[in-house]
């Protein structure tokens, strides 16, 4: 049965204005979400500590997404976390949200806002969806920011429909993803 709307509740939010840090802030939000659920083992760092770990690779170019795994190891044992880089369609994103596995999506934010092409990618965490919108805890726009689906799909496909999933392996092994989700719209 597919849901028409869903929203993960009490999802952490980090706002970030520094250029190139949106992926770092999104990663932190997702890790904190899993930490609060009790899936991570180590002491959880503050955002300042966390972003400091990534700082030297952000510099002016922004963070290379495929290096996330190499840096997450500094805050959590890799045997506990799996980082996957995938491409998908909207239904996959909605499915992941609905089973409590929030995806980080990379898309053309400028194109979304004003249909002007940008070389830069923006990262945000999707935490909910409705008939018209996807909802994100967005490092720039804040909590439960609505992204209109049609416009988002265009802006997302411009960057190759990429998403990143960061999940605790223990959660994956439970093989009952719906038990991890809680929320409503």
């Amino acid at each position, binding site marked *: 049965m597919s849901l028409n709307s869903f929203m993960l509740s009490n999802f952490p939010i980090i706002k970030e*204005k*520094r*250029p*190139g840090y*949106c*992926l770092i802030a999104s990663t932190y939000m997702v890790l904190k979400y899993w930490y609060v659920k009790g899936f991570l083992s180590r002491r959880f760092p503050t955002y300042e500590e966390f972003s400091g770990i990534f700082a030297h*690779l*952000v*510099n*002016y*170019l*922004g*963070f*290379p*997404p*495929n*290096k996330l795994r190499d840096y997450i190891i500094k805050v959590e044992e890799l045997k506990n976390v799996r980082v996957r*880089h995938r491409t998908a369609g909207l239904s996959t994103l909605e499915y992941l949200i609905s089973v409590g596995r929030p995806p980080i999506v*990379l898309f053309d*934010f*400028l194109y979304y*806002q*004003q249909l*002007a092409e*940008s*070389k*830069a*990618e*923006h*990262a945000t965490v999707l935490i909910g969806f409705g008939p018209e919108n996807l909802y994100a805890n967005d490092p*720039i*726009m804040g909590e439960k920011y609505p992204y209109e689906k049609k416009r988002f799909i265009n802006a997302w496909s411009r960057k*190759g429909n*990429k998403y990143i999933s960061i999940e605790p392996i223990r959660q994956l092994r439970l093989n009952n993803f719906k038990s991890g989700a809680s929320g409503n719209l």
Partner: protein
Amino acid sequence: MSRSIVQKEWVLRKVDEIIYNKFGTNLGTGEPSFISKITDERQRYYWIVPLEADYPRIIEDKRTGSLRYITLHIGKIGEIWIDASTGKPVKVPKRSHLNKTLSDELLRVRNKVERILIRTASLQFARLISLKHMLTPLRNLITIILKREKYILPDTVRGRKLQKFINLLYVNQFITIERGIIRPSPTLRLLFEKLDENYELIQEYVIKSIIENSYQTIYKEYKIRVLHPYIQISSSYYDYALSAQELISLSEEDLWEAYSVIYGVYSSRRRFRFDEYLRELSQKSVEILIPAGEGIWSGNEKIFRDLVSQFPKESLVRTI
């Protein structure tokens, strides 16, 4: 013999992958070009894919509460060569090299804003108390030369210390020197008359001209660096305002963040003095920055308008 060539779309995907794996989220691909080249007496074919950068900037206007996402179009900062026969990348720039190129480009924009601001707001900078204090010997020289009509530099330690200020006045054509005798130039005399022989005003005017025309000299050669943080802080504000194309209101923290990002200054000493710099920049006779509420800073409308008229808009894109 016909040889199979990898298609442009495939090449673009390949380079996107390299960007994703190695470089970062502020880069993308430009339009590839296809070339042939003779290497080791063999005709080879390559796709050259430009690496283009857009640098994002997020500005929160505290007055309106609105957020602005601005992208500075930097353009090409490197390229990747793909062997068109095998699909293998044969020339990939180092990440550090791309980072340096992008940083240099941003530096170029920053320096341009700084240069225009120095020109536009030189009189306001000349009125800064810290600068006046640092340039007391220069101000004394102006007064003494105008009062006595001529002055002979004493051959003492103090006299030698004054030499650099004499040079500045001479280079900026405010004095003449003949056989060791220093006299006010016709320009200085005329200005003095125009300013109703007001010593305070003529000093300000001379300092203004020196800032306008010889700022690099006083900074680099004479190592008078007192003005530098004031220029950097105000330049950071106007850099952001120019990219937003509006006289925005920034929180003190955001202005500090802008200053830190643009100039790479994170020292606790600078942070400690930041409030005082802001206070001086907003003094009544200076007003390069204007307080717009508790801990909120805006700019001077006239300075902003002058800057807008001198800074090309097309390099900036703004949204939201």
